[in-house]
């Protein structure tokens, strides 16, 4: 695949177009249970995220920030446009990629820290967080050691490590989730309000971790409601509001 | 075994004059012989056959009787045993039945018989080439213990899916610490068909292997005939770490002193007195006549 020709909607005309490129992406929901009502979310989304850069999606609640992250992660479909990512040395379009490629991209290219932890019954916090590392081929002992190190850094009480996170507080669950997302060294990392339920001390830890990821060349795309954190990590803020459309009936 | 070999004098047996030689009509015999031949051609395979009504109840050996009736000829010498004995009700009834319907010579001596019909034993005296051993079989299907569906057991035989036989033996060891199956112990015939040896004690299983005599099995109620031709490999199923072994007796026969035979327990009185004697009465008598004696003279 050659370097994509970016449409007019794409913000950057950089010769190094970035690890992650959204090109004229449109998302809407068709609600068949409401007589086929079409709920537009965003349209014409175009921007690129380069290696070592943290791009923050801004805009009001409901502007479609989370939807954009979910399209990049693959849990939302793309109605129109392309989402290009460098995967294993080649550029692929996630909007049309086979589900198996998307799964492979999640293992090897795009990490994701979701807003809420989907707790798995009976699996310990340590194993939940170490799982992506182990899947990426890291020896389980090493993976658990590295996870323990990150738990310690995130001030997660050690007595919780061996417990399943289902009963943890929001902040504790969030730190398990952050460790799970930050541990693998993947080229792209998506952050969906990772600091929302954290106290000041732990927010600072996460800010430092994001800075380290940038240093290591990771391309980060995130949503941060907290202005302090956003200002501390963002290289650029993209106002999603300008991609919004008003609802139209089908 | 040729019915034409000697002219049969019907007048000698007036009571059954209206019956054919050996009770069955010739067409039925042909049908059964075909099944026998097929069984011999496919050792261990259960051949379905159109079992006839016999003048005795099911469970009394109707399968064995039909097989014997189909192969017996005026020149044959017949021996009938039940649990090794020539003088039990079942053996006597069947012997008399063939005496009256064929007029053939009968015997209790294993060595003199050309056809031996048996229930639950193989004679201790080694069989020889030319003899035929006819087994009475209640349940011919060894797989039925774990698989009641006949359609499925036939497929299992066809595809040699015999894992389930070892499940039965596994259960034995798990429950009793050893393979506790002592009767109807399953065998593999010629490396192909798992076969039920009829309810003989496993003590007799080794006698089936490379036996010079022809072994025929008849199950009347179940309508199956199967065969083990002479000099056929018959192996008893087992585990590497729990190999097949025959029953061992801790004493010799009380009457003839034999220590390599299958013994029956005989209750002597109501004081708990008992003794262990050969189950094969002919073998025991023969040894006693030859001067052997056990601890307990009768």
């Amino acid at each position, binding site marked *: 695949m050659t370097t994509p020709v970016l449409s007019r909607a794409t913000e950057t005309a950089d010769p190094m177009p970035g690890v992650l490129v959204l090109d004229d992406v449109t998302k809407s929901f068709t*609600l068949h*249970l409401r007589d086929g009502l079409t709920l537009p979310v965003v349209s014409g989304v175009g921007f690129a995220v380069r290696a070592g850069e943290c791009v923050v999606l801004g805009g009001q609640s409901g502007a479609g920030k989370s939807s954009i992250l*979910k399209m990049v992660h*693959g849990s939302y479909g793309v109605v129109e446009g392309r989402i290009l990512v460098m995967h294993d040395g*080649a550029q692929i379009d996630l909007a049309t990629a086979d*589900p198996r490629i998307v799964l492979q991209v999640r293992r090897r290219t795009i990490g994701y820290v979701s807003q809420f932890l989907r707790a798995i019954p009976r699996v310990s916090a340590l194993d939940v967080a170490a799982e992506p590392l182990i899947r990426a081929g890291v020896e389980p002992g090493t993976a658990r050691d590295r996870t323990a190190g990150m738990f310690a850094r995130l001030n997660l009480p050690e007595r919780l490590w061996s417990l399943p996170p289902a009963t943890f507080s929001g902040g504790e669950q969030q730190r398990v989730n952050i460790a799970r997302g930050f541990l693998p060294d993947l080229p792209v990392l998506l952050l969906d309000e990772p600091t929302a339920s954290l106290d000041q001390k732990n927010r600072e830890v996460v800010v430092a971790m994001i800075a380290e990821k940038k240093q290591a060349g990771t391309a980060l795309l995130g949503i941060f409601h907290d202005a302090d954190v956003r200002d501390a990590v963002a290289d650029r803020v993209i106002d999603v509001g300008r991609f919004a459309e008003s609802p139209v009936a089908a | 075994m040729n019915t034409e070999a000697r002219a049969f004098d019907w007048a000698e047996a007036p009571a059954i004059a209206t019956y054919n030689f050996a009770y069955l009509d010739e067409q039925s015999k042909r049908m059964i012989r075909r099944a026998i031949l097929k069984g011999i051609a496919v050792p261990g395979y259960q051949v379905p056959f159109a079992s006839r009504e016999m003048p005795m109840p099911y469970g009394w050996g109707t399968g064995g009787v039909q097989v014997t009736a189909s192969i017996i000829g005026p020149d044959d010498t017949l021996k009938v045993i039940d649990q090794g004995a020539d003088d039990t009700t079942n053996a006597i009834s069947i012997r008399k039945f063939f005496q009256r319907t064929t007029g053939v010579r009968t015997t209790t001596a294993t060595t003199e018989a050309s056809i031996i019909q048996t229930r639950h034993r193989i004679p201790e005296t080694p069989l020889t080439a030319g003899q035929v051993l006819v087994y009475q079989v209640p349940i011919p299907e060894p797989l039925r213990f774990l698989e009641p569906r006949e359609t499925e057991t036939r497929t299992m035989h066809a595809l040699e899916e*015999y894992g389930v036989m070892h499940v039965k033996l596994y259960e034995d060891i798990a429950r009793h610490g050893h393979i506790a199956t002592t009767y109807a112990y399953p065998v593999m015939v010629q490396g192909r068909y798992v076969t039920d040896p009829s309810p003989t004690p496993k003590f007799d299983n080794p006698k089936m292997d490379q036996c010079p005599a022809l072994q025929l099995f008849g199950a009347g109620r179940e309508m199956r005939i199967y065969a083990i031709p002479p000099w056929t490999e018959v192996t008893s199923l087992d585990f590497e770490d*729990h190999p097949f072994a025959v029953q061992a007796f801790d004493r010799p026969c009380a009457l003839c002193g034999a220590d390599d035979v299958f013994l029956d327990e005989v209750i002597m009185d109501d004081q708990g007195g008992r003794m262990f004697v050969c189950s094969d009465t002919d073998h025991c008598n023969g040894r006693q006549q030859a001067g052997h004696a056990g601890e307990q003279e009768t």
Partner: protein
Amino acid sequence: MPAMQDMAAEQPLMSVRDLTHMYGNRTGCRDVGFDLYPGEVLAIVGESGSGKTTLLNCIAARLQRTSGTVAYQMRDGRMQDLHALSEAERRFLARTDWGFVHQNPADGLRMSVSAGANVGERLMAVGQRHYGRIRETATDWLGRVEIDHDRIDDRPGTFSGGMRQRLQIARNLVTGPRLVFMDEPTGGLDVSVQARLLDLLRGLVDDLGLSAVVVTHDLAVARLLSQRMMVMKNGRVIETGLTDRVLDDPQAPYTQLLVSSILQV
């Protein structure tokens, strides 16, 4: 593009095309097609009568298809149409390379023999003849499905529903199959028992690198176990894709109804 070439070089474990099964004039399943790759778990969801169990039985060669193909990658790597196999080959495949977990454990277990014999049967079927080693393997497998080793000589009739289901799983996995078919594996179990079973299944699938096709009407089961799912209605596949995408961004009207019908706790 090395990544794409890698993917192209990898053969599916099972490849289904235009699969149709008719019950007389009535449709069981129609024109179903999918590829299942090694290590993948595919969920088939839909309500009762949607054809998902018919489809499962067809691809597991338990039911004759009316038309279409089901190709399976044999252990030697060649793709083989299941319906071209002899019955002997199919049955051998089914008891060595496949597992089938029934909704009702009694359908998949021998209730008249002990737990140990249930687990050991497949080993004996492939020719293992060492009691001690068979028992050792059975003990190990009971442990892996969280059944106390001192229950090894008990019959499944004395087990709870959840234990029976775990025993059925051990009985299936003991020969190291590459593909396991599951028909409502958590159906009929209490919620807490379901959670334990699901977690156990998830762990086993991960550890053993199993491929699985799981039929379920429970979307939570699909979410927890599968990477991809197919939604069926009236015998046809109406939506297919990544499990989280189908559940989070359903496209077909029926899928939207299905997803919106889940009770939130």
